[in-house]
């Protein structure tokens, strides 16, 4: 079954090389506290220096794309949630917008604003987990708990709205599942006020500008913009290398063009641009920008009158025959859905382009020449969730 007639890759060819007898083959994972999921990384090291790193994925493959062919379009939503389980709002938003594009459904501005509120709250929560677990991998245990305290408040808001804390099935084709409850806007504002005034400055002071943290990360895992674009690193990974591209500005959806926010780019303030520190920095600053967008969205919601969120939800989702590729800016990068419809109630083919999948394709190139302790720093800086990589 294996295609043995193709070119033998350089990993296996060097297995019999006598010069490399001093190399140690080390296995990280699939059970490992710092690989953010079931990821297995096979390392070839010369002492502490890594010569080659080969990631093995597929331990969490749950056949999402095959399931999509057997259920109808609304039935895909719970499956879509479960891909990137740390940022579920983004996944369902992407699929809903893809199907709406193919069907030609245009939702009301109220639903758009609600979707933006949910997406940005999810972005803060997702980056909180990313930055928190990253600092925990580097050794500082406390920022993780401070950030998770704020994430708990966000999850409480989600539970209040739709009943679920982690996997919501919230964005439907043509609308959302539940309207915002009364008092939601005030609760969100309280949360954001505390985040802006307390958690965010503390995070910057305690850990982000901490000398030890900076020394661990500032010269590690430097990714040039060309490598990033060639390996399709997107989102904070790409912006950390200095490329200022954000889908919410380039190809806006849900009314993002009407909000005032900045694209966060890695500054390279402690080392070369594109280091692990810069990617992490982009995520930290993006939390602040999400907070800004949320303030604007909440202001609009207060002035808007409530609309029926199920108004445009069709009784049967039956897109016309055709295909579409649509991308959204998920917290981990560009999440793309390639949808092929043959006019039935089941999708014909759904292909998900997961941002973490493409980021891992660059792992081997970034990991060459670093020390084993830096491999942990590299994995955390790419912010991978195996559910999304393996689907």
């Amino acid at each position, binding site marked *: 079954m294996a295609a043995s007639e193709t070119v033998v890759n350089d990993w296996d060819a060097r297995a019999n090389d006598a010069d490399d007898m001093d190399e140690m083959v080390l296995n990280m994972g699939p059970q490992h506290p710092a690989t953010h999921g079931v990821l297995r990384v096979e390392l070839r090291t010369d002492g502490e220096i890594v010569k080659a790193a080969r990631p093995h994925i597929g331990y969490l493959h749950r056949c999402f794309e095959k399931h999509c062919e057997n259920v109808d379009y609304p039935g895909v939503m719970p499956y879509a949630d479960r891909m990137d389980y740390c940022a579920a709002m983004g996944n369902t938003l992407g699929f809903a917008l893809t199907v709406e594009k193919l069907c030609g459904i245009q939702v009301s501005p109220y639903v758009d604003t609600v979707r933006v509120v949910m997406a940005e709250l999810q972005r803060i929560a997702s980056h909180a987990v990313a930055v928190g677990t990253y600092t925990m991998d580097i050794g*500082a245990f406390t920022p993780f708990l401070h950030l998770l305290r704020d994430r708990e408040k966000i999850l409480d808001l989600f539970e209040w709205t739709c009943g679920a804390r982690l996997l919501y099935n919230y964005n439907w084709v043509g609308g959302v599942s539940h309207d915002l409850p009364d008092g939601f806007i005030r609760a969100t504002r309280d949360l954001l006020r505390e985040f802006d005034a307390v958690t*965010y*400055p503390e995070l910057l002071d305690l850990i982000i500008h901490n000398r030890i943290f900076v020394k661990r990360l500032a010269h590690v895992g430097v990714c040039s913009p060309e490598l990033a674009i060639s390996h399709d690193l997107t989102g904070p990974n790409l912006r950390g290398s200095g490329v200022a591209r954000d889908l919410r500005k380039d190809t806006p959806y849900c009314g993002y063009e009407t909000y005032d926010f900045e694209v966060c780019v890695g500054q390279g303030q402690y080392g070369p641009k594109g280091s692990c520190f810069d990617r992490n920095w982009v995520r930290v600053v993006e939390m602040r920008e999400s907070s800004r967008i949320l303030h604007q969205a909440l202001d609009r919601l207060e002035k808007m009158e409530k609309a029926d969120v199920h108004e445009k939800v069709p009784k049967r989702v039956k897109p016309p025959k055709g295909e579409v590729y649509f991308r959204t800016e998920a917290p981990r990068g560009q999440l793309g859905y390639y949808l092929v419809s043959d006019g039935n109630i089941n999708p014909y083919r759904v292909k998900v382009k997961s941002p973490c999948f493409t980021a891992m394709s660059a792992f081997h190139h970034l990991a060459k020449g670093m020390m084993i*302790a830096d491999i942990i720093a590299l994995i955390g800086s790419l912010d991978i969730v195996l559910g999304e990589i393996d689907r």
Partner: protein
Amino acid sequence: MGVTYELLLRTFPALARWPSWVVIAIVTGLPALACFTFMALGPLVYVYGERKISAFMQDRLGPMRVGPVGLLQTVADTVKLLFKEAIFPRGVDRRLFVLAPLLVNVGAFMPFVVIPWGARLQPADLNVGVFYVVAIASLSTVGLIMAGWASNNKYALFGAMRSAAQIVSYEIPAVIVLLVPVMIVGSLSLHDITEAQRGGLQSWFLFRYFPIMPVAFLVFFVAGLAETNRAPFDIPEAESELVAGFHTEYSGFFFAMFFMAEYTEMFVFSSVATVLFLGGYQAPLPALQQLGPLPMGWFWLWAKAWLLIFVMMWLRWTLPRSRVDQLMHIAWKVLLPIALALVVVVGGLILLPATAGGFPWDRWVGWPLTIGLVGFLLFVMLRAFRWNRRRAQELAA
């Protein structure tokens, strides 16, 4: 020892008639036993303290269920560890495997023999006290390497090697900087060093000879953090790294012994630092030295050592950890030159005729510099506080 003999003689006058070897055995054995028991119960309290302190720093509660506010948590943990099966993986060297935790504990507990808890409350007042402490504490390193080797585990060996390299590297600046108070006092005996700091807060070495002594204290503290494998130098026991540390393969009672040794070493190091720099059993005010008939020296030593332990825990839960090569860089390229410079400066001051006779350093150099530095720091802190408040207002707006 003399105290014990007098006390025992008063209660058992018949003791004088017993054969001398029995008397010696009792008189030396009893304080050792008391000391050892007291120290062995220490980790129970330290572990609970660490869990509660870390919890409060992380905005959570810590152990709350076992006993009131979780006070019996460590007892429960100890009982659990003692009852766990001590697994011997296949291929381990049994003798070394068992010997290693014993050796680490020997290195951790033996220094207590010379720690002075009071003017006459010291199990043994060796006149090479400091030297003895340093020498016997390095036994732990041997035990550590033994643990890594005997485990028959490539990752444990890796961790043991890293740990041994780290400890040995940091011992050098620690020992060199220990010479500073020794040179000033002129004696290696811990009792003499403590007595030289009699008189209250201002005569503690930390607050004299500014800026020499505070820098020496800092160097010793950082080196001690690295020697006890505490953050930010806890690479050998970092769970989120590839290597789980030299005590990977140990379970049950042996793991409990390693755990106990680590916390005891922390206390040893804090006690030594207290004796050398913070005045040992001297109270901050001479009036507090005796509470009626009860000498309070032991309390002050305990309190100061605990303060240092608190600082160590505080640092652990605040700072991330350094990478191995960065750690080595700090030891060899930062701490060692500073330590050598300090020794040279202090030695020079002692030898120079102008200052040899006890130059009133504090009055002309120490206190002016201290007041100036404190004033400058207060000014910077005030400015930072105001900047911070302004930024918080901006962000919340």
